[in-house]
């Protein structure tokens, strides 16, 4: 059935977009760092997963778990060394956005350069869990389903963390107003650092998961950064549930257009939907207007 096939394909694709966008949403929405090196960090994790699998036969889920502490430390180090000085000196949110943009633009080339030296600029791909799964009569790759499951699981977990826990409340407070957060006794410096680190962890997890079904290369990070930006701006900056909904909508739009109109128009459909949402709701689907 064409419609069912398209819907399932759209959800799976949207799940991947959601997964890719989760971490940037935390970094941009909460820690207020517009991290242009986000895609590179994601690809970096994908490259590590590829290397672990092809050289040592380490299964990607294992690599994923192993990467969590590494990515957290890496993210924290980046924040403390490179970004905190910028946070300290910036008076307004806009100033911080410009500064962090420039700093992470530099980071982008550092991470990319390291990857180019380590593995070169070639295409990297491997096969893991690339088995068909029958879903309501439509055949989907198991690794893509796993990515969809992780996106939903992580999205819900993060939602619960933010909505139901004390630390989550503090994070939300930080997102709304860092100065006021300081006044009510939130350790802004530590919390922002850890939120950025958590965003890095999510980027790394997304990288490992997409490496199972996408052909990656060291220089393709910007693709992911762009997609993630579209998703979080459309969903409402800092709103994780909004990001997941926006990602699923984008995936569905792409898949429906590809099936019933023309696959060549998927990108156009993507941006048309993005623009339409912003025209009606300038702060995104679930964003509060500033």
């Amino acid at each position, binding site marked *: 059935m*064409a419609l069912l*096939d*398209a819907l399932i*394909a759209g959800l*799976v*694709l949207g799940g*991947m977009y959601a997964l890719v966008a989760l971490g940037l949403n935390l970094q941009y929405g909460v820690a207020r760092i517009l991290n242009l090196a986000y895609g590179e960090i994601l690809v970096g994790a994908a490259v590590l997963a590829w290397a672990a699998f092809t050289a040592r036969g380490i299964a990607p889920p294992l690599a994923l778990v192993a990467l969590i502490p590494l990515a957290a430390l890496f993210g924290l180090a980046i924040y403390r060394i490179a970004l905190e000085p910028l946070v300290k000196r910036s008076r307004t949110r806009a100033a911080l956005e410009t500064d962090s943009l420039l700093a992470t633009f530099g980071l982008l080339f550092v991470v*990319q350069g390291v990857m*180019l030296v380590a593995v*070169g*600029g*070639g*295409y*990297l*791909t*491997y*096969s893991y869990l*690339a*088995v*068909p799964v029958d879903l309501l009569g439509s*055949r*989907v*790759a198991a690794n893509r389903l796993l990515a969809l499951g992780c996106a939903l699981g992580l999205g819900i977990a993060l939602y619960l963390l933010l909505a139901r826990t004390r630390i989550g409340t503090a994070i939300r407070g930080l997102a709304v107003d860092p100065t006021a957060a300081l006044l009510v006794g939130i350790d802004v410096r530590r919390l922002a650092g850890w939120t950025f680190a958590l965003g890095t962890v999510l980027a790394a997890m997304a990288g490992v998961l997409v490496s199972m*079904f*996408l*052909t990656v*290369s*060291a*220089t*393709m990070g910007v*693709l992911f950064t762009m997609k993630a930006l579209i998703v979080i701006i459309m969903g409402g900056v800092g709103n994780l549930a909004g990001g997941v909904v926006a990602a699923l909508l984008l*995936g569905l739009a*792409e*898949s429906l257009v*590809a*099936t019933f109109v*023309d*696959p*060549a128009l*998927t*990108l156009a459909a993507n941006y048309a939907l993005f623009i339409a949402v912003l025209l009606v709701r300038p702060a995104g689907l679930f964003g509060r207007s500033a």
Partner: protein
Amino acid sequence: MKVEKNRRRVVQALGAASAVMAAPALVRAQATRSSIKVGWAISKTGPFAPGAGITQLPNYLLWVKDVNDAGGISVGGKKLPLEVVEYDDRSQSEEAVRAVERLITQDNVDILLPPWGTGMNLAVAPTINKAGYPMIAPTFVSDRVPELVKRWNNIFVMLNTAATYAEAVVAVLKDLRSGGKINDSVAIAHVTDQFGVELAAAARKALPPAGFKIVSDQGYPISAQDLSSVITEAQRANADTFLAFSYPPDTIGLTETARIKGFNPKVFYTAVGTAFPIFKGKFGANAEGVLGIGGWNPDSDAMRAYIKRHVDLNKNEPDRWASSCAYAGLQVLQQAIEKAGTLDKAATVKTIASGTFDTIVGPVRFANNIRVGGWYVGQWQDGDFLGVYPSQAGARPVRFPKPAWKAA
């Protein structure tokens, strides 16, 4: 191997207006010269980097090493080793043009090697033409080539026009059909980029006269991350033949999706990337029977030795289409210089145009600046991507049908 600034040469360059480059090159070649400066600008970063890094750059490096190991290129009875100047064009055509201009006017290279890819070659061709360097492009596939080389007679291409490749696969299909092996339905998919659009257009023109019906015809954008709708529609069209005029990431993506979806046409064809070592690496036994653009015939001592040297230096196999052609193009350049006995650009261009050269892929000559021969269609057979069309020495018979995909 990077070049140090050479004062003498800078002074010489001051005297030489860029328009009369040939004269000082000649003087240097015979008087003070102790080496030959070879320069290139190629994509080391950006979206073209993977293609350049698989097909072209490894062969530039291998050729420089091979030449220098043998003492150099012999010009006028003296062997001159190669020095290299390299720039990254960052996959941007303006950057490529700037880098090529720098190579010509500031670095004063004696030999200028082309960048990777059709668009990039088109971008730098006018500049290289103005300076008169011979340009043997290993990765330049366009239907505009025959018309362009009339204007730019210093440009030679190792591959062929888009139409040639599309018509070749249609010829293979026609053979299968007249043998009663496939029906007349063909599903087409193509990447919406110059290359894919040109090949698909040529296929659309060539299929109906050969008695085929196009039952599905889909384009998809170059960065498409999910191709399941393309495969699902081709599957629904129930054609015996699936032709994808694709680029490397989507070649992998389409093949993977076809396998997952259990889409098993009798003929499965993908374009750029089918010949790459990663294709075999990823699909293993499932690559068997897949048709694709290009192909090679590795059954000669020269090719076997080339493959070994390539793997030793680059830690990676060459691709089984344009890699060996890229290397052969460099051999042509070297032999033309040696034959002409000079680094004079016009003399070299003339020698290339009229001569026949002994290379790893056999004798190479050009007709109207396009290489005569080469492989247009290949097929994965027993773990190698062998040339099946046109029928010439070394061509393998097409294996039919492509076996159904195995589970993993």
